[in-house]
């Protein structure tokens, strides 16, 4: 057991947990932030994606002991980010979701894409979003929503 001081969504939070615990489970169970999802636990699906110091990070793979004081942003707070809000709105206006379980991760990945590449091509979208699984298959609408969000952000 060890104590960690984390910066989560702009707030300082303290948790006491086993150092090997992935950030995902610290978020979900210690901090009750369940918007970040467990889909596979081996970083193959992206449902656990958060931002760590601005980098899209698969929180199921990173033990909490490796986070340090890098700021963490989760789906619960991304709507306060101007790009995050536009992406969420695009997701809603394009009726992207089906079961919705993967969409936190999809949105967090899309936000990082758009922050780096404001005018993404189809290839940019496929490469950046290409590691997120949507079992329902909402990929066509995810593409459309990203393009719409990019347009809105011009």
């Amino acid at each position, binding site marked *: 057991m060890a104590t960690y001081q984390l910066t989560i969504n702009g707030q300082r939070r303290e948790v006491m947990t086993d150092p*090997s*615990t*992935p950030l995902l489970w610290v978020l979900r169970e210690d901090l009750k932030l369940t918007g970040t999802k467990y889909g596979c*636990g*081996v*970083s*193959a*699906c*992206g449902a656990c*994606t958060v931002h760590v110091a601005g*980098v*899209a*990070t*698969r929180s*199921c*793979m*990173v*033990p909490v002991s*490796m986070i340090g004081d890098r700021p963490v942003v989760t789906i619960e707070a991304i709507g306060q980010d101007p790009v995050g809000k536009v992406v969420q709105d695009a997701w809603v206006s394009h009726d992207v979701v089906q079961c919705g379980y993967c969409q936190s991760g999809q949105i967090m*990945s*899309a936000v*990082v*894409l758009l*922050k*780096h*590449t404001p005018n993404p091509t189809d290839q*940019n979208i496929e*490469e*950046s*979003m*290409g*590691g997120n699984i949507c079992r329902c298959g909402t990929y066509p609408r995810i593409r459309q929503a990203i393009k719409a969000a990019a347009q809105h952000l011009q």
Partner: protein
Amino acid sequence: MIRSRTTGPRSLIVVCAAFVVCLVASPPQAEQSPASPSADRRSDGLAAWQQVYMVLTHQRCINCHTATNYPQQGDDRHRHFANVVRGPEGRGVPGLHCATCHQEANADSTGAPGSHNWHLAPLSMAWQDPHDQLLSSAELCRVLTDRSKNHDMDGSALLQHHAEDKLVGWAWEPGRGLNGLPRTLPPLSRPQFADATRRWVEAGTPCPPGQAGE
């Protein structure tokens, strides 16, 4: 490996002296003794190169020295899962950077390898062909010693890279995989690898003859 030949005490002293000279990191000098022509030096160097080649083509090294737009993983060198791609700087792409999963150290509890500055070797340092086939010993040697491809590294820079670079060093502390088992190690220890590199460099980084694919 030094090819065995008749040695006398004077040759032994000469060999030891040569070793000491190398430890002081001065430019390698061929030791001339009445019984060691430059052909011997070359063949020693080639023998040392073979050892270096064995390490370079081990999975822990070659999986990131790909000629494609993706890394490999596993002892069977399959394409890395989740469609991760090289990206413009070998660090992946926004949303799917190497750092999206790989941190500064191995995460054994989750199976993610990690080290300082995790990223792909540049395409100029691809040690495979675009069909994921290993380059031959001759071809890889040529690539490695081509200063227009290897970030202008001379022999001593190569030696330093092999002996000291943190990411290179990960190959000998690769952590545990998803199955909980430790990842397999290169056939030589790092000190042995560094030593083989040194001997190869001292011999003038000779490359075996032959075309690609031999």
